[in-house]
């Protein structure tokens, strides 16, 4: 390989984009000429179906349904996780009280709560929101807790010498000092919340991208199924991008001082 190609590959991610285009091209070629089966439709057909579903509002409607329940469950998890995490990290008594409980619930995979929730909350919107919340809670809780526990004692002593009250210390020192870890937990949970939203929609629902995708498979509308999955890929990517953008604004001081920019 010539040095110019190597330089190009080292200096930008354009090669990665090119790889995606090449794979899609190979998909297209194989679907047209190598594998003549309805389970492997050409990419052009998938995009055509995707476009139809976007224009007639179907995909938008399902996307918004997913986004709504995901964000509801996720926001509750963020509120609860940060509150509990800060309290447990800051007060030894609360740590001793809640830590064993957290350790028992933590290893249970999110989907395992589903049967219990169906029994108690039913199969509606609330069940999905609660499921998303429970599964998203632990990464936020544990990262917040860890972040608060690792705050340098000098920072807390500084708050005391400046005469800050406990509430002021939380606002001015504890939350900002732990914010890099809190945001790490929130990013992990953002992905988890989407997984649980899709899963719950696949199991019992009448809307959402999970419902749309599974229904398309069951009704032999294979291009629609792929269109649903493509939408999820773009949606997940956009969510993560948005999150990173917000994060880089919120903790610029951290990213700059730790040389991550």
């Amino acid at each position, binding site marked *: 390989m010539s040095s110019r190609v190597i330089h190009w590959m080292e200096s930008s991610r354009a090669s990665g984009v090119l790889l995606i285009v090449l794979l899609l091209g190979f998909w297209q070629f194989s679907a047209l000429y190598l594998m003549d089966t309805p389970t492997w439709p050409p990419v052009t057909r998938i995009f055509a179906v995707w476009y139809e579903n976007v224009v007639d509002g179907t995909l938008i409607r399902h996307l918004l349904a997913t986004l709504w329940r995901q964000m509801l469950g996720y926001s509750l998890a963020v509120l609860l996780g940060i509150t509990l995490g800060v309290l447990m990290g800051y007060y030894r008594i609360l740590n001793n009280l809640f830590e064993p409980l957290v350790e028992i619930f933590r290893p249970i995979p999110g989907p395992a709560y589903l049967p219990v929730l169906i029994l108690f909350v039913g199969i509606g919107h609330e069940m999905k929101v609660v499921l998303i919340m429970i599964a998203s809670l632990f990464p936020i809780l544990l990262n917040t807790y860890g972040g608060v526990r690792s705050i340098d004692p000098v920072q807390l002593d500084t708050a005391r010498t400046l005469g800050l009250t406990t509430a002021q210390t939380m606002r*001015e020192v504890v939350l900002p000092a732990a914010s890099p870890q809190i945001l790490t937990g929130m990013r992990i949970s953002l992905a988890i919340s989407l997984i649980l939203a899709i899963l719950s929609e696949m199991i019992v629902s009448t809307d959402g991208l999970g419902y749309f995708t599974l229904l398309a498979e069951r009704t032999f509308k294979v291009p629609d199924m792929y269109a649903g999955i493509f939408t999820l890929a773009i949606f997940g990517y956009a969510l993560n991008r948005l999150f990173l953008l917000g994060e880089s604004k919120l903790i610029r001081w951290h990213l*700059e001082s730790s040389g991550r920019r």
Partner: protein
Amino acid sequence: MYSPQEYASMDYLAIDRLSKQFSAHGQAACKDISFAVGEREFVALIGPSGCGKSTLLHIVAGLSAATSGAVRFKGAAVTAPRPEMTYIFQQYNKSIFPWRSVIDNVGLGVKYRLQLPRPEMEKLVREQLKRVGLDRYADYFPYQLSGGMQQRVAIARALARRPEMLLMDEPFSALDAMMRVELQDLLLSLWQQVGLTILFVTHDLDEALYLAQRVVVLSASPGTVAKIVEVPLAYPRSQVATRREPVYLELRAQLYRLMVEQVIAGRAEAP
């Protein structure tokens, strides 16, 4: 300046038979320490590492409790941090909050204390920044500043609180030599301008002699007061001239011998 008799009689800050033990049967960090600091006096506290000088300063600041004995500030026992005293930490990179700009770090010192309207607070903060020579760096973040500049921010934040007394815990020991010298002179000029009382912990006897009117020497672990030395050198002091004066050199030799004795005694006692 005050004569030794004058400040001895003031008894502004009194440390009275103070002891600190970290656990019930653990070794004591400091034991039966008594000395006083007069109003507007500059006292340095030196001792070998592990003699409990930082522990002592923590107790004086009200950040931790003594096992026995008491600290009295203007007659009242110190049990929690007091607004008239401000602490300057050695770890300026921790004590200055990295998520706040320089101006907001200094502002935090008074944000909840003075309840000033925003423009007045900003004016006050900018005055302090000017005093420490950082007026051009108000909108910078700590990671954009050198160590010396970060410690200046901490000093500006302390001054904004209009303290009567500064408690300084090895504030310059993490800085390189030139920065340290610069900050020593800045501190002396601030001390004289503002009329502060300073208790300054250091392990550097040159620094102690150069800055202080009196030097309290602690013995090795557990720390006790080994000696209190008067430093009869005139202010303003000069990094070159003062350090050449016969009195300075004589005291330096005397303190050096004392410190070596303490280190050796500490080793002999160690298990």
